[in-house]
């Protein structure tokens, strides 16, 4: 049956099946969000409820087609998505696809910096903690991990602002660049919306420094949160692989302890680590909403919470759908990486 249609190589077959799984995942999320949002009513009423008379609302609803059966609207929405049409925001009339590109770039930039911090802090500390299990380094690192996990990202952000911005005055408290820099960078062509790239393209060293300075605090706040998770993840998985038979066997053939950890324990621990790190991307996006709000970083999370507060559900739906696609694609990429790390998946 299915065996005949699918290609022979198990890896390709596995990846194709996995790729096909993206579709139901996205579909489920889109559906859940669509109907959750519509339970309250149509977007026009939600957004303009207090401001317009019932008659005006009816007219607007009919214009936008929100008076048709919900299923029709749902199918039409899905159809639009297939064509790449995410709709237009009700409140500020922006094309959602345009929002996704500009604000998405900002979130991408923040995520990049944050991941840099998370890897730079999390991986070495996690390995250190596993290596010195139950000794002082382990205990202090674990406490650190618990603390950065326990502190909400907006509280860490607030503390960072208090210290580095309000008290010491070293770093800017919010935004992605100084106003003058923002205006100047608007004229860069091609404009990537990724500030640091734009600044480099512009070629003004002062602007690059300004952009970097603005990124430090948000990256730290979001990055430390993620680092806390990485530390715990790496520690636990390393401890688990450290007690496997093949690690003992490697020791028994005279491999030095450092190489045992690096080449056997860590490499094997990577499979679960990569998997959870992949999920972490979704968490990062969640954390980005808070971080962006804290630092007024004009990313996807920031704009999403603005639209949410304005009850602009057309915009919200579009952005959430995009996030769902990112999440689904990320989890596919994770499986792809795992297939490369773990030969048992490959063959």
């Amino acid at each position, binding site marked *: 049956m299915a*065996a005949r249609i699918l290609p022979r190589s198990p890896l390709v077959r596995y990846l194709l099946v996995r790729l096909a799984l993206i579709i139901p995942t996205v579909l489920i999320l889109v559906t859940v969000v669509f109907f959750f949002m519509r339970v309250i009513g149509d977007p026009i009423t939600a957004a303009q409820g207090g401001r317009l008379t019932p008659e005006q609302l009816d007219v607007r609803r009919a214009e936008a087609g929100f008076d048709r059966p919900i299923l029709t609207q749902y199918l039409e929405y899905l159809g639009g998505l297939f064509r790449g049409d995410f709709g237009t925001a009700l409140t500020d009339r922006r094309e959602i696809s345009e929002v996704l590109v500009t604000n998405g770039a900002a979130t991408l930039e923040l995520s990049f910096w944050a991941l840099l911090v998370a890897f730079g802090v999390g991986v070495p500390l996690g390995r250190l903690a596993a290596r010195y299990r139950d000794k002082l380094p382990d205990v202090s690192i674990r406490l650190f991990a618990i603390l950065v996990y326990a502190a909400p990202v907006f509280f860490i952000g607030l503390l960072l602002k208090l210290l580095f911005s309000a008290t010491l005055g070293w770093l800017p408290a919010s935004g992605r660049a100084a106003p003058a820099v923002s205006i100047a960078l608007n004229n860069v062509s091609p404009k990537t919306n990724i500030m640091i790239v734009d600044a480099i393209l512009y070629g003004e060293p002062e602007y690059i420094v300004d952009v970097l300075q603005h990124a430090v605090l948000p990256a730290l706040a979001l990055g430390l949160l993620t680092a806390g998770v990485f530390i715990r993840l790496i520690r636990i998985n390393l401890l688990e692989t450290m007690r496997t038979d093949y690690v003992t066997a490697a020791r028994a053939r005279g491999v030095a302890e450092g190489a045992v950890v690096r080449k056997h324990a860590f490499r094997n621990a990577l499979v679960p680590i990569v998997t959870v790190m992949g999920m972490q991307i979704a968490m990062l996006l969640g954390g980005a909403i808070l971080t962006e709000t804290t630092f007024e970083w004009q990313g996807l999370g920031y704009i999403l919470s603005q639209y949410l507060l304005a009850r602009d559900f057309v915009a919200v739906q579009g952005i959430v759908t995009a996030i769902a696609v990112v999440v689904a694609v990320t989890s596919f990429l994770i499986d792809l990486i795992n297939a490369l790390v773990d030969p048992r998946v490959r063959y």
Partner: protein
Amino acid sequence: MSTEPVLRIDRLSVSFRADAGAVQAVREASFDVGAAEIVAVVGESGSGKSVSSRALLGLLPGYATVTGSATLDGEELTGLRGEAVRSLRGRRIAMIFQEPSTSLDPVRTVGWQIVEALRAHRRMSRRAARARAVELLDLVGIPDPAKRVGSYPHQMSGGQKQRVMIAIAIACEPEVIIADEPTTALDVTVQAQILDLLRDLRDRLGTAIVLITHNMGVVADLADRVVVMYRGEVVEQAPVADLFASPQHPYTRRLLAAVPHLGHGAGSATTRGVQVPAATGEARSPDVTPAQVPALAIRDLVVEFPGRLGSPAVRAVDGVSLEIAPGAVLGLVGESGSGKTTIGRVAVGLVPATKGTVEVFGDDLARTSAKELRDVRRRFGFVFQDPAASLNPRASVGACIAEPMIVHDEGTEASRRAKVLELLDAVELPTSFAARYPHELSGGQRQRVSLARALVLGPDLLVADEPTSALDVSVQATVLDLFRTLQAEMGFACLFVSHDLAVVDIVADRVAVMSAGRLVETGLTADVLRTPKEEYTRALLAAVPVPDPAEQAVRRRARAELPART
């Protein structure tokens, strides 16, 4: 054998620190290993045989304390740390582990792991090391080594993986190889090949081998000298022939007496220890009279399991027909993957038959309604392989045994309790055990509880899946004795699934041999095990090491003359 020992262990003790105080795992063990000598260290669970050898390589966790002395060519090993112990491992003393599938790093090719072993101790280029890895794979009998060097462990069979482990062990030509249960995880035919390989390596390379094992057949096959350990102490050591011929220590005698010996089982009725009562003696008659409804009748059974994503279904059982007369015991034997366990599971209705029929006392399992099936199940008993896993850890022993009565709504609270006590008594456990929990019991005790639960409803058919293979030899002997006694008393029919021909020899009236899902041969135990008709059965029988060095030497030579099997 030279007079000067290579490895000398002198009053070696190992203890583990714990909150409750130190646990002494090894007490003042002393023995020597000569050059090119194979010394078997034997003992059962908790004897300290593995711990003592790991202590030599410093492979014990940090909370273990090692005292006493172990010297390699006069050089002290205990107390070595850091680089000193690292450079010793693999270069001078190498180790082979029990479980080849978990002892090889799954994400590295086998060649990579051999190269790693080489380069840990020798300055050699990657290329030279890889060439040497191919040679080593060739040496340990891996076919097409130049290609297999790039394989991952999961692409190899268990036996091949153990060969790779051996290749890693001999990579740096160590003086001593410690082989910790090297064949325990392997099928008996593969075991025979690995034992041959080890013997061959000793002969060719002159490596001394410390063989840690619980299997007296393996000892008889391979060892020159035997060290017997019991509860952390060395109780006896002697050349292998002497030990088997005239064991000195009571424990050794007990151990040897407990080992089932292929060819000394029930098939030859004279050696059968339990008298068969006259009443059931007739039921024991191996031939089913046509009038009798068989206890279990399997006809043209096919069992398939769905394959993974897009791959074809796996056929575990392929057209098997079996019958067990009421009161008779059928031993179902075969190697891993032969389908014997699947048949056991089909017989109790855990796995549905893909094709064919399974009838229990004339009731077709597939056709009976759910309600009727419950009544059929009343007549079943079953015992699983792993006594630790087959009792609900959250239920007391009493509750476990009473469970079938509760499910079938039998008796009152009081009568059930009485029945539980009666059965505990029958399986020779103190009645106070009813209040205990399974984890508080030893393996043998748990298996007795399993047996009690299986028999609580007075079944007419018992399905036992490897009931003793998780047990130590001496415990196995007592459980088998108990089984035979109860079977004789209660007269139930039994499907006894086992990989151990010697055990089947003891308990079964008839034997069915399986291979790759098919029935190879079936007949009276004595006939099948003494005068097998099929090539496969002959090879299987020949591969079983018997606990008698002289007899085993003869068998080994005879096996060498058997045509090679693929």
